């Protein structure tokens, strides 16, 4: 750690502000997340959740505020920059290519080759990628019929699981999940929530954004509530209730 300062947090954001014209999307928001922590980010539409996520995933630069990743000041200039630093985002509308196999998707944009010679011609080492893909899915207890299945052949939950697995494969700093349980059946939601628990066991911080509050209450350690561009309340999940979370989200209760 630089200057001998050891922060308990993997990522720490302080005083993050973002304006769109006259609209203040984020007003001096603080956010922090530690290793093995699952933090829920909730709030009504327009509360600033997605703007904050865009800042954390490098999609937009904040007007003010500081970001520290593993104790080091960073500026995330682009999503690619964030990914290079190990921050992976799983978007609501999946970034998977449905015609491609699971393995091809897990390594999309990060292909492996046999040698430098084969890299020159772009000749893929599919066998190695397939093995590595199988390994990561096994570790996460995700079962699929075959690694050679195309994404289109999977159920919604399995697809989400593959998307999360891809994030785990590359995101060694932090994983951001944007509405990962949307449009899923009851069993599949359970599968995705279990998957998040396994990611937590690996010590990787997970930011969980969702409108479905029961899922947030089930899987998170902490819930950050946003309201009109501000972070209004930080709740410890095991000490709170659905009613209390809703009260802060709707603004009927103010911290």
């Amino acid at each position, binding site marked *: 750690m630089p200057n001998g300062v050891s922060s308990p947090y993997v990522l720490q954001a302080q005083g993050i502000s973002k304006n769109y014209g006259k609209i203040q999307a984020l007003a001096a928001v603080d956010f922090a997340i530690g290793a093995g922590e699952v933090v829920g980010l909730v709030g009504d539409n327009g509360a600033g959740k997605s703007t904050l996520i865009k800042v954390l995933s490098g999609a937009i630069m904040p007007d003010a505020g500081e970001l520290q990743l593993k104790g080091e000041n960073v500026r995330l200039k682009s*999503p*690619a920059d964030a*990914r290079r630093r190990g921050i992976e985002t799983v*978007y609501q509308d*999946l*970034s*998977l*290519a*449905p*015609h*491609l196999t699971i393995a*091809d998707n897990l390594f*999309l*944009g*990060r*292909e492996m080759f046999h040698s430098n010679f084969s890299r020159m*011609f*772009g*000749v*893929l080492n599919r066998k190695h990628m397939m093995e590595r893909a199988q390994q990561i899915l096994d570790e996460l207890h995700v079962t699929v019929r075959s690694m050679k299945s*195309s994404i*289109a*052949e999977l*159920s*919604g939950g399995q697809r989400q699981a593959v998307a999360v697995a891809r994030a785990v494969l590359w995101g060694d700093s932090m994983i951001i999940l944007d509405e990962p349980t*949307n*449009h*899923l*059946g*009851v069993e599949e*939601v359970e599968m995705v929530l279990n998957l998040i628990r396994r990611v937590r066991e690996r010590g990787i911080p997970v930011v969980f954004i969702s*409108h*479905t*509050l*029961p*899922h947030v209450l089930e899987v998170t350690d902490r819930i950050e509530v946003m309201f009109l561009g501000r972070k209004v309340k930080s709740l410890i999940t095991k000490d709170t209730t659905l009613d209390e979370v809703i009260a802060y989200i709707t603004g009927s209760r103010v911290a």
Partner: protein
Amino acid sequence: MSVTEGGAPIRVKQQLPLQRRGTWLQDLGDWWTFLILILLVIIFSITAPGFATGQNFVSTTVSASNTVILAIAETFVIITGGIDLSVGAILGLSGIVGATVMQNMMVHGDMPALILGVLAGLGTGIVAGAVNGFVISFMEITPFIATLGMLGIGTGLTYLVSNGTDIVNIPPELSTFGDAVLFNFLGIPALLALVLLLLAWFFLTKTRFGKYTYAIGSNAEGTRRSGVNVKAHLFKIYTLSGLLSGFAGVLIVARLATGSPLEGTNDELNAIASVVIGGASLFGGRGTLFGSTVGALVISVLVSGLVIMGVQPYWQQVTIGVIIILAVYVDQRRYRNRVLK
């Protein structure tokens, strides 16, 4: 059916999106167009005397090589979810430019004229393809419009360069090469098409280039988010399409010993038809070179057989049109229960 939990609608359905109904058509998989090809060959062999001869095999495969090469180009483009309407026009322009350069360079000797002419033809294809790629990737004009524009530009330039007349003064070595037949059955154009086919197959199925081609057609935005430079890749795809069209143009000059401004006219239709008959989706993400080649051969065999039977040539176009519609209809039925279009 939908149930509600915690205020959010949750769909409970579609656990088995790929469940096959097991109809004979689906069990045939991707081989049904191949069976149609075999069937056509059998029917013509019986009904058209002179079809099942070595000579006709050579002439059919040689003329098919043109469609096959354009179909290779179109396969890459269509898998990305795009379309290239200018392959025929680029073929025509490349052939004319190549032939014109050869004619003007003949004074310096046959070989220099031949080499410069071939390079000029291929270069024309690359430049025209790169212009398509630039317009599509960086001016963000849809492939249909961009290549429709190039269809007009290419056709117009072909007539401007040639003044609308054939160019016949080209090195005889080129046509000797283009006319050569190996082992009495393999014409040089067919051999070159086969080599290109194998190369293209390797790049489409074994390399990152091929993988990105499918990925972009499958989910362009997701591919971009995964860190792939989608614009650069599409630029390469259309440039490749131009290069292959240019190659086909030069090959026709070699075969006919003539640069004709009429070459390539409507060839894009046969190329697109081949790819579609071969099972590619115009929505992108799906298509194989095997399928496209079978499609190209179906068209070539049909043309050859109908000519031998003495059917009026205009019926060829009608038949090909009917086959395209049938092929897509069958394909849609096969994929009806699937998620992928």
